[in-house]
């Protein structure tokens, strides 16, 4: 055990002598939060649409007013009144507009006489996400026009939905916080633990370690523990900073039990990723290998974790991968504790999975560690 402490101390001292690595490990996940949180806010904004009113009637005017209300309110669209269809279609083709809405001549007349009419919607379907959002926006603008023609007596059969949000309102950038913390954990685990072995091999300093009576357990255990200390502290700093940036005041929202729960989840997540990375990179001898595989692993573990998209909506095979991905359980546990204020009972499955994963992966990493050159 005394020898393992020497490995831990060596690693911690070396890490502290590289403040740049420390700073980068904190700043990078936060930049991710700022970029992703601001560029993809959950709801799309300011999608430019061209509107051509060939009707000029009262209901066409009403549709336009509804669209303008959407523009002023949730800002999903930005309306450009265009007189020429040719100009509008050219703009659509060149990407100036995401859609062209044409209210045809006789729109209002047909609506009054026949009770139904058509609106032309030319849409840039190369951007599926924007196309779906625009279709929904237009339907909502038309929907309220249609309702004017439903007989009063028929309204009694209508179903009204009243939405009740069970948790305090959470903005999109706030929902990214568990993902940001997981990313900080991944980066911490990647730049500590097994990375030290790879660097020692690359620099040739591993020889001096292998010459000593240190056992495999001393070496792997020492590096995992030092990585655990560093990564946990970094992840908690990232959690604190990203919460402040996104407007969550943890000292108000998190109980002491919740905070202990968060620390515990961070530690188990770190151990799981340390073990996994040790197995995958344990025999690499060039930092470039860590760079290449690290970037790849970050993507394939992070995106199917539920940090940015619900796991339930994944295709079957991706869902299978998510079930064995430790980051899935880390994200779920963190979301549950941070946003729902739930107790241990709600995350016991996550804790159990992460604990077993960490134990098994570190055991495999230790057994497969090469104690010779």
């Amino acid at each position, binding site marked *: 055990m005394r020898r393992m402490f*020497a490995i831990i101390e060596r690693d911690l001292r070396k890490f502290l002598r590289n403040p740049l690595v420390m700073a980068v490990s904190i700043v990078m996940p936060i930049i991710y939060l700022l970029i992703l949180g601001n560029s993809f806010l959950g709801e799309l904004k300011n999608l430019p649409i061209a509107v051509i009113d060939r009707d000029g009637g009262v209901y066409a005017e009403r549709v336009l007013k509804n669209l303008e209300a959407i523009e002023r309110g949730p800002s999903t669209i930005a309306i450009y009144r265009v007189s020429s269809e040719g100009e509008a279609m050219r703009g659509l083709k060149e990407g100036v507009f995401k859609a062209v809405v044409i209210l045809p001549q006789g729109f209002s007349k047909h609506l009054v006489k026949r009770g139904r009419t058509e609106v032309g919607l030319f849409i840039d379907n190369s951007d599926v996400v924007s196309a779906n959002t625009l279709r929904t926006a237009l339907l909502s603008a038309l929907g309220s026009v249609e309702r004017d023609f439903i007989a009063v007596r028929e309204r009694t059969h209508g179903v009204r939905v009243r939405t009740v949000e069970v948790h305090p309102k959470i903005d999109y950038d706030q929902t990214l916080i568990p993902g940001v913390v997981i990313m900080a954990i991944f980066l911490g685990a990647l730049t500590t633990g097994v990375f030290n072995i790879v660097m020692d091999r690359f620099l040739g300093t591993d020889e*001096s370690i292998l010459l*000593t009576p240190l056992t495999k357990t001393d070496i792997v255990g020492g590096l995992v523990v030092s990585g655990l200390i560093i990564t946990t502290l970094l992840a908690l700093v990232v959690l604190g900073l990203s919460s402040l940036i996104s407007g969550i005041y943890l000292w108000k929202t998190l109980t002491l039990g919740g905070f202990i729960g968060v620390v515990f989840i961070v530690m188990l997540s770190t151990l799981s990723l340390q073990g996994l990375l040790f197995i995958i990179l344990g025999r690499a*001898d060039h930092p470039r290998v860590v760079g290449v595989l690290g970037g790849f692993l970050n993507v394939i573990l992070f995106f199917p974790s539920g940090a940015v998209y619900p796991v339930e909506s994944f295709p079957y095979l991706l869902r299978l991968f998510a079930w064995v991905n430790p980051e899935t359980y880390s994200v779920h546990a963190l979301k549950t504790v941070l946003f729902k204020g739930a107790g241990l009972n709600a995350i016991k499955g996550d804790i159990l999975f992460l604990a077993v994963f960490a134990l098994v992966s570190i055991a495999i990493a230790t057994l497969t560690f090469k104690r*010779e050159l």
Partner: protein
Amino acid sequence: MGDVAAIETESLVKRFGHIEALRGVDLRVEQGEFFGLLGPNGAGKTTLIRILATLLRPTTGKALVCGHDVVRECTEVRHLIGVVPQAMTCDLDLTARENLDIYGRFYGLPKKERTEQIDYLLGMIGLEERAESLVATYSGGMRRRLEVARALIHRPALLILDEPTLGLDPQSRYVVWKLLEKLKERYSLTILLTTHYMEEAEALCSRVAIIDHGNIIAVDTVEGLKKSVPERDRVELTIDSPPDADPVQAVKTLKEVKTAELKEGVLTLTVENSQRELPLIFEALRKKDVKIKEAKSTHLTLEDVFIHYTGRPVRDEARKVSFFIGAGVPRKWGR
């Protein structure tokens, strides 16, 4: 320990794929010896050392360090040896004291013993005043001295040095030599040194083995090795000879002169011992009125012995490279 050898190997073989780095090495180094292992680059010196240091497993054969098998009793062997590897392996972002302290803890040394030993070693290598500086700020020679100190932190019985002065400037090399001489004088350590600097082995080692193509091809004292070589010291004399004198015949009458040849006014001789025999040669030539304008003598060196046994001086060593360097390139293409 009695008559237990510091190092003993029997038919030691090490193969890396199709390359046979050691081909049945038999070697015995007695306790207290300063033993040199000479060989061209790629001869198998580092492989042999790495097996003795428990860093590599032999393919077949046996290696014992102070009577302990390097495979079955590797932990005991690791406590008995101190190794200065070829590469500089001290942590650059730690100070000299931290390097020594952490290494001492790897061996489980108690704090008090560790502190005393660190102070003593820092004094011995002359780095007390720079003990708290980061190793990154050290010169190559200082780092090498620190490596030696680190290898001695747990008071090993056998110190192994793999090319300890490789890449050092002459001044730093001299400082390391002095340090090793000091160690030799003060301790009953057994020292095994690999080098391809002949003057290093000549200056430091009591016995030398020459290794080539994975085989030990000669083992003896430096003098013994020199005697085993037919070549002798070489003397070159630029002379001014009267027309009737025969300088070649004049010196050939001396039994110490093995060969003599006159070419363009330069008389070239091979002799047993140039220092001892030069006055006799001068006297023989003087008697024939031969004037000596310039005299040059070259001693038989270990380098000559080395070339005699290996047939060449130094060649590039095939280093084990990262799996990922040249991955996918067929081995026959030279990966």
